[in-house]
Structure formats: structure tokens, C-alpha cells
């Protein structure tokens, strides 16, 4: 038996009964309207590439990307119906640009630039292609893949970690992708190897995917680069921090990435998207989303275009949404969806449907009983109970000292707490405050530094001013070089003239004397 990698904390979860349905990718037809949400940048006013009523083709870029956001592509051919500012139901604080596209059902593509031999291209240009085709991390972090690759090139990574771990027991999107498109994922891995020159590829997978593991092992038999790492089936496993910790035993502190210690982590579906972008020239416009219905425990993995309203998906699958609660996310991390017109985003990986429950009896929050359950399960070795006390009493320094920023918001401590304390809500708020304090401190430092600089400058100015003044008074103007030379010249001239005059006088006197002699 091979060694199974593990991490401390977390909870074991039973794998859900294997069904044949899980392997099949369902296809969903195009809805008539797509909603695209675009993070807008206030400093750039011409981000959009399209106008209202303009005709777009499938795969046409809608925005110019910038440093923080990649370009977004049209998922269908049709018309731009409206462009407006709207907020998202998940992060309602921020405003997004919402583009509504009406489909014409023709699905005409723009011309795709296919690359057969990617080794003819330099890594830089390949990264540029990945950026232009809008590939971001599909695991949930939404981090631009091109940025990650650039960071990886700059800091010399040695290992590519293929993240095939699904943290949530209900999400099977990546698993489904692996079973169906394994060879394409391998090509994607090779592309990344070519770009970032890694020497190892670790495929991290959880222990219950037995069939898949044996399939991968038979495929990689004669490939030296690849290696399979089997992780214990536990929640949470999918976070990059946790994966690195279970593989190497190293903790990645807040503010650092796995790249800093030489590990480049990519989700399976991201690798798939990179392969599609490079080899097929296709922009990222679709992804696989798991659908889990709690009522009859049925799974579905659907290939869906980004921008499809969730409402359309539910209608198509004949799921009644009046008697169900629709959540985005799996069992542990989930948001209740308020507005069913929200589209599928690039980082949506699961939609779970539960029976509608009216909150008749509210969960009562009791006091913390110091049972310590939460401490046992925390996968990053924090002390949630302590953090909770500190954040409740607004003790911001202490929370920072107890490393609240390392919390990955995995929700386990909250699930296990017998007193029903909404721990993660407290932590999120506390993190927000910590961020604010950090920013303010940074600002203050900068302002103070600039103030000091100015004081120095003014002092210098004054100094030099007074020095110049003193110079003016003390130094003899006639002593300066130019004047000196001039006076010397004058002096010489004067002397010469004086001499000449004397000579003249002498000469004339001699002449006069001669004349006298002649006369005599």
C-alpha cells in the first residue's frame, strides 16, 4: 500500500455512493439571454470593447483586460442588449458591469488560432495567449493563470501540483472531467511544463477515486515526470495551502504563495482550460458544474456556458425552485442564492438544491463552552475558540497575533461547534477590519515618510539659500577669475601705453636735442 498523505484537523467525510451518472457530462442548450459580470476598474474608463446593439460572435472578447482582470469573451453569437452597473448577490458590496447578450442561436464562432506545436512558441508568448483567452483559476480563487505562470517563471518553481482534490464531498466536477478528458489534461500538464520548466508533476487525488487512480497509474507508467499522490478523504483538502501542507508538511504563512517555496498549483479544470486555449485556441467560455439535489441524492455534472442564468438551468432540468432552496457551493461553503437570474460565473463549481425550510426555529447561539472541538478540527492549526473571543471583544491586536489572517474560511469549526456559534461570520468581519487597519497603517507610514522628506527638502533649501547669501557678502567680486583676467589685461595695456608714452617722450626729446645740435 502506498503512503497516504494527510494533514492534521479536518473531518472525515464519507464518499457518496458511486453512480454511473457521475461520469456523464450533460450538455445544456443555449439560453436566449446571457449575463456577463465584469469587475470594473475605476481608473480605466474604456474597458469595454463592445457597444449596445453591436453584433458579437461566439468567443469574441468583450473587454480589454488589465493587470487585475483578464479579458472576458462572449459565450454566444448575438447582440449586446444592454450594459449596466449591477451588484452581485454573492458580493453585494462591489459593483460590477453587467452585459446582457441576446443569443441568435446560430453559435457562429470567431476564427480560432490553433497551435499544433506549442514548442515553437516562447513561454512568454504562450502566457500571453493564455491571458488573452481569459483563463483564470477555476477552483474558486479566480486568480489569473497567466499571472501565476509569470510568478512561477520568475521564482523558479520545481514542481507542478495538479490539484484533483475536491474538498467538498458533493462536488464531482473535477472528477468527472478527469474521467472524461484525461489525455487532454496530460497535454495541458505538458504545456505548463514547457512554460515553467518544472521537473516534477504531482497529481494529487483523494483515496476514494480508485478507478481513476489506477487509470492514471497505467497511463503514466512510462512518463518519468508524473507521480500520483493519494490524499486521505477528508474535508478540506482542496485548498492550496492544505495541499502543500499535507504534501510537504510546510506551512505557508499569510501573504505568501506556494510559488514562493517552489510549488505551482493548478486545478484540473484550469489545466484543461489552458490546453483548450493553447491547442484549440478556444477562450474560456464554458465549465463543468456539479448539481446536487439533496432531495433524491441525485448528481449531475453539466457542461455549461459561463453567463447562463441559473434559472434557465433549473427550468431545463425541471427543478421546481419555489419549493427548493438553491445554494451556490457544496456542503460546507455555500451561499443561499437570492436572485435566480444570477449567471454561472467562472468560479462556480457546484449548485446544491435543498428542500425549502422555513426558519421556524432559529438556531440559538449558546455561549462557548470551551469544549475544544473546533481546535481539533481546524486544518491550519488555529484556535478558533480563542479567535472568537478576541474578535467578539474587538481585540484587534490579539486576533492578529493569533494569526487570524491564516484562516481559510473552511467552515468546519462552525459546523462542528455544539453551541451553534457562527464562528466564520465573526472571522470574516474581523479579517475585514484587519485589512482596514493594515491599509491605514500603511497610509500613515507613507504620509509620515513624505512629510519628513518635505521637511528635509525645505531645510536643505533654506541652508543652501543662506549659504549663497553668505557667499555673496564675503567673496570679493573683483577676485573672481574673469574679473581678475580682465583687470590684468587692462593693467598690462595701461603699462604698455605708459611705456609707449615715455618712449615717445624720449624719442621726441632726442629728436629735439639732435635738431639743436644741427642748429648749433
Amino acid at each position, binding site marked *: 500500500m502506498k503512503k497516504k498523505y494527510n494533514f492534521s484537523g479536518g473531518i472525515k467525510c464519507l464518499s457518496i455512493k458511486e453512480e454511473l451518472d457521475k461520469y456523464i457530462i450533460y450538455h445544456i442548450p443555449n439560453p436566449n439571454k446571457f449575463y456577463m459580470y465584469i469587475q470594473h476598474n475605476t481608473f480605466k474608463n474604456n474597458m469595454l470593447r463592445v457597444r449596445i446593439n453591436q453584433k458579437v460572435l461566439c468567443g469574441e472578447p468583450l473587454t480589454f483586460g488589465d493587470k487585475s482582470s483578464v479579458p472576458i469573451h462572449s459565450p454566444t453569437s448575438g447582440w449586446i442588449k444592454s450594459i449596466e452597473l449591477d451588484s452581485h448577490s454573492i458580493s453585494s458590496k462591489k459593483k460590477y458591469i453587467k452585459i446582457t447578450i441576446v443569443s441568435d442561436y446560430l453559435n457562429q464562432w470567431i476564427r480560432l488560432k490553433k497551435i499544433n506545436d506549442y514548442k515553437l512558441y516562447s513561454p512568454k508568448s504562450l502566457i500571453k495567449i493564455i491571458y488573452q483567452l481569459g483563463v483564470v483559476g477555476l477552483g474558486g480563487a479566480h486568480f489569473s493563470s497567466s499571472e501565476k505562470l509569470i510568478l512561477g517563471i520568475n521564482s523558479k518553481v520545481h514542481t507542478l501540483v495538479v490539484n484533483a482534490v475536491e474538498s467538498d464531498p458533493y462536488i464531482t466536477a473535477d472528477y468527472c472531467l478527469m474521467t472524461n478528458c484525461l489525455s487532454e489534461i496530460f497535454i495541458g500538464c505538458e504545456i505548463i511544463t514547457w512554460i515553467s520548466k518544472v521537473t516534477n508533476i504531482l497529481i494529487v487525488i483523494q483515496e476514494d477515486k480508485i478507478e481513476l487512480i489506477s487509470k492514471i497509474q497505467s497511463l503514466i507508467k512510462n512518463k518519468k515526470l508524473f507521480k500520483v499522490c493519494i490524499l486521505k478523504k477528508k474535508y478540506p483538502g482542496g485548498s492550496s495551502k492544505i495541499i502543500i501542507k499535507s504534501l510537504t508538511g510546510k506551512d505557508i504563512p499569510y501573504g505568501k504563495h506556494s510559488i514562493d517555496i517552489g510549488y505551482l498549483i493548478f486545478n484540473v479544470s484550469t489545466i484543461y482550460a489552458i490546453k483548450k486555449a493553447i491547442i484549440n485556441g478556444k477562450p474560456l467560455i464554458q465549465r463543468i458544474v456539479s448539481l446536487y439535489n439533496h432531495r433524491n441524492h441525485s448528481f449531475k455534472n453539466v457542461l455549461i456556458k459561463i453567463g447562463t442564468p441559473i434559472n434557465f438551468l433549473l427550468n431545463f432540468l425541471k427543478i421546481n425552485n419555489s419549493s427548493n432552496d438553491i445554494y451556490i457551493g457544496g456542503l460546507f461553503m455555500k451561499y443561499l442564492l437570492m436572485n435566480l437570474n444570477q449567471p454561472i460565473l467562472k468560479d462556480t463549481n457546484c449548485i446544491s438544491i435543498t428542500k425549502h425550510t422555513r426558519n421556524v426555529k432559529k438556531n440559538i447561539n449558546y455561549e462557548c463552552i470551551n469544549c475544544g472541538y473546533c481546535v481539533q478540527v481546524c486544518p491550519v492549526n488555529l484556535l478558533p475558540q480563542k479567535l472568537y473571543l478576541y474578535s467578539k471583544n474587538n481585540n484587534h491586536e490579539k486576533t492578529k497575533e493569533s494569526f487570524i489572517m491564516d484562516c481559510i474560511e473552511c467552515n468546519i469549526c462552525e459546523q462542528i461547534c455544539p453551541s451553534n456559534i457562527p464562528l466564520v461570520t465573526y472571522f470574516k468581519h474581523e479579517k475585514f477590519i484587519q485589512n482596514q487597519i493594515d*491599509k491605514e497603517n500603511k497610509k500613515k507610514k507613507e*504620509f509620515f515618510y513624505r512629510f519628513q522628506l518635505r521637511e528635509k527638502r525645505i531645510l536643505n533649501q533654506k541652508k543652501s539659500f543662506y549659504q549663497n547669501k553668505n557667499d555673496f557678502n564675503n567673496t570679493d567680486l573683483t577676485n573672481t577669475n574673469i574679473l581678475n583676467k580682465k583687470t590684468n589685461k587692462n593693467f598690462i595695456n595701461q603699462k604698455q601705453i605708459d611705456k609707449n608714452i615715455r618712449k615717445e617722450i624720449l624719442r621726441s626729446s632726442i629728436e629735439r636735442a639732435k635738431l639743436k645740435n644741427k642748429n648749433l
Partner: protein
Amino acid sequence: MIIITVFSLLSFLLGFILSYTNYIFPIKTDPVINKVNSILPQSQCAQCGYAGCYPYAKAIIEKNEKTDKCIPGGVEVISKINKLLNLNDSIEIEEINVQNTPVVYTTVKIDEKNCVGCSKCASFCPVDAIVGAPSFMHTVVQEFCTGCNICLFHCPTNCIKIIKEDRLC
């Protein structure tokens, strides 16, 4: 016995070295002043009657200045300073500026069409956030502007405006 003597000697030596270094490199800045200074909002607006936040912090420590002069800081800053210095004058705080909201960082913007290039604003800005040469158009570097609004009162053409920008969120 030997161990005790060795350690006592060692500690004596170390203590001597420490005091000697302290004598050679004396701490020039008062740490308390720096602490007070770090609490102040650093917008250098001079509304406290001093040239900037650091002079005010110095005055608090050295000249027994009152702690409630900083207007942009509001109640929060006052109570923080009081907590730091173990002062207990909460009644005074309530009297003064209760309405004051905690620091909101704003910045200003120069309406560049109307700028005549008198260079007055640039010479008064405490953090050198305004760039421009005399008789040319001036502009504000948003990143450095603390929103102290000193420049506002010195502009002859009134072309500087405040932009509300809560940069902390």
C-alpha cells in the same frame, strides 16, 4: 559555586556592555512620541495649531498639550491617545467632538483648465503631493494626497475640489 560566579560575572558583563552601548548610541527619539505620532492620522493638516502631526505629538508629551486638538482624528484618536498615556478625561471627550466621524481619507483634485500655475498650493502641501512648475499647470498625485485641504485655501482661482474617496474599503 563556580556556576553561580560564572553566571553572575556573565550577567554583569552583559549589563555593562548594554549600558555602554546605550551610552554610546543614545536613543534620540522618544519612543512615546513616536507611539502617539503613529496614532495620529498623519494628514498633516495643521488644524491642531502645530505644523503637523509629529510636532503635535511632541507637544503632547513635552509641553502637556491637550489631547483633543486633532479634528480629523475624531473621538477615536483622542481615546486611543488617552488610553496610551493613561489619561482619564472621558467627560471632556464627550463635550468636544462627538459628531466627528473617524478618519475618512479624502483626496483633492485640481481642475486643470482653471489652474493658472501660481504654484501656491504646491508650496503649502505638507506631503509634496502636488506636482507642477511655476506658471504651468499643476496636478495632484492621488496616491500621496492626505486630504488635509490646506491647498484649498491657498488657491486664488478656487480650482481645487475635494473628491470623497473612502480608500479604506
